């Protein structure tokens, strides 16, 4: 039986007006790939456009922002309107509630991201596409989204401005500092997500870690964030 908190949260997230904007953001890479597909010469097997699209736009910006917004909304909106009280005042284990929230935010993010990434791959790779060329970046997006969602859910309980803080982290830390300071990249979710792309496509810079380590790090980030959120639920001031 599917957890009712998961289904309710997923429904609430997908019914939001901002989901339309997020869907447009998610569709942007696929649209760019379509334009590229129409413009490139027939029989071209150049992977560089797809590689740049995934590594410089999809993982670090599109996936991160969409996961951030859904992750923040999963608890944040309910904190605003008081719905969170009706969940907290139940005998459900706090970790179970948090996992349902993270899973819902993650599912909502993947509903927008997966079709866009697959379409981008099909369109920009043309006949040169393989399961690996689409599958590995997809795995990176899936795991990075999980980590972003979990971190955003945590952020939404601890701060009143989770979106602002999340955007600063994504744009300033990951998008700027971590790109030229190798040690800073170790604290970048997107860098670990991009490591999966590097498994099948050339990378501009050295990957922060191999795919196995990156996968473990991203899952560990999600697990620690889930645990910390469950603890926070019993500590933070509710409306």
């Amino acid at each position, binding site marked *: 039986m599917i957890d009712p908190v998961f289904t309710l949260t997923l429904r609430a997230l997908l019914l939001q007006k901002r989901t339309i904007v997020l869907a447009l953001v998610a569709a942007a890479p696929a649209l760019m790939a379509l334009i590229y597909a129409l413009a490139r010469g027939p029989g071209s097997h150049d992977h560089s456009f797809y590689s740049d699209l995934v590594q410089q736009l999809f993982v670090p910006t599109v996936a991160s922002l969409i996961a951030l917004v859904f992750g923040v909304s999963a608890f944040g909106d309910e904190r605003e*309107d*008081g719905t969170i009280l009706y969940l907290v*005042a*139940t*005998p459900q284990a706090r970790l179970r509630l948090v996992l349902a929230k993270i899973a819902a935010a993650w599912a909502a993010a993947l509903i927008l991201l997966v079709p866009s990434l697959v379409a981008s791959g099909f369109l920009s790779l043309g006949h040169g596409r393989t399961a690996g060329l689409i599958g590995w970046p997809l795995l990176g997006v899936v795991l990075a989204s999980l980590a972003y969602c979990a971190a955003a859910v945590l952020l939404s309980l601890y701060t009143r401005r989770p979106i602002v803080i999340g955007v600063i982290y994504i744009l300033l830390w990951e998008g700027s500092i971590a790109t030229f300071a190798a040690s800073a990249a170790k604290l970048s979710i997107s860098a670990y997500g991009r490591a999966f792309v590097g498994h099948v496509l050339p990378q501009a810079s050295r990957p922060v870690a191999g795919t196995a380590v990156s996968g473990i790090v991203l899952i560990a980030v999600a697990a620690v964030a889930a645990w910390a959120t469950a603890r926070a639920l*019993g500590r933070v001031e509710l409306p």
Partner: protein
Amino acid sequence: MSAPAIEFTGVSRWFGDTVALADVSFTADGGVIGLLGHNGAGKSTTLKLSAGFSTPSSGVVRIFGVDPRRTPAVYRRVGIVPDHSPPWPFLSARRVVELTARLHRVDDFRTAAAAAIETVGLEAAADRPVGEFSHGMRQRVKLAQALAHDPELLLLDEPLNGLDPAQRSHVIELLTRLGQEGRTVIVSSHVLHEVERMAPRVLVLVNGHLVAEGATDAIRRLISERPRRVLVSPDGNGRELARELLGLADVDAVRLANGTIEIETSDPTALSRELPLAAQRTATLLRGIRPVGDDLESVYAYLHERARGQAR
């Protein structure tokens, strides 16, 4: 011996420099208890602390002997009506109540929800989305979701708000019955006459202080026996009438200023009998009689002052 439903021991809660609750101690176990106070008195803070939505800055809050923030399992025994709107406005009332019953681990949550909806008289609208409901109907949805899992303790934040007189009577009857069944029902309100219809015991909060606690009748007596002030506007300068009033047994003080007489009395009923006679004796025509400080704020202020005096 089982632990009481609610136990506050020296509980204070402050937000920065603002003290929301100051050293409050009480125990509640069985029956309806009114939590009375003006807006900002600390009623909602008390309920939030009881519900585990907030942590005390100092002191200890226990529900059935445990800290609800650390032991969520205790919520199986607790029903809460928060100040906020019901959850999930896109769902029907029935679905909302079923879901909250299911989250409270009620096996037959559909039957439990149907019974709770019937109890609050919402059957006709049960399949409409909550988002379309009036304030009164939303209140009843909140009450139904709090009742569906058959809790032993109910924490209700102003549950009569937005209800029409017939609905109010129905809810008051329902809460009275729940209290008589042995459940502990804490109801916050700023309206004394509403609370006294259902709660044999009240806790009065003023500016975060528990200023009075006990049987509702006794609190009512305390309030009615407090010193009252009456402004009398005599025709003329009123000196003679003021002098006459000073001689009355039930008059504690008389002040004459700008042609108006301010009388302080501990027995307004006796004064209402004596004042016309005194005016007759001094041949004074009365142009106006007006009580001062009879509003609820003044009543609470009096209880606060009285509690401070007792503390000293």
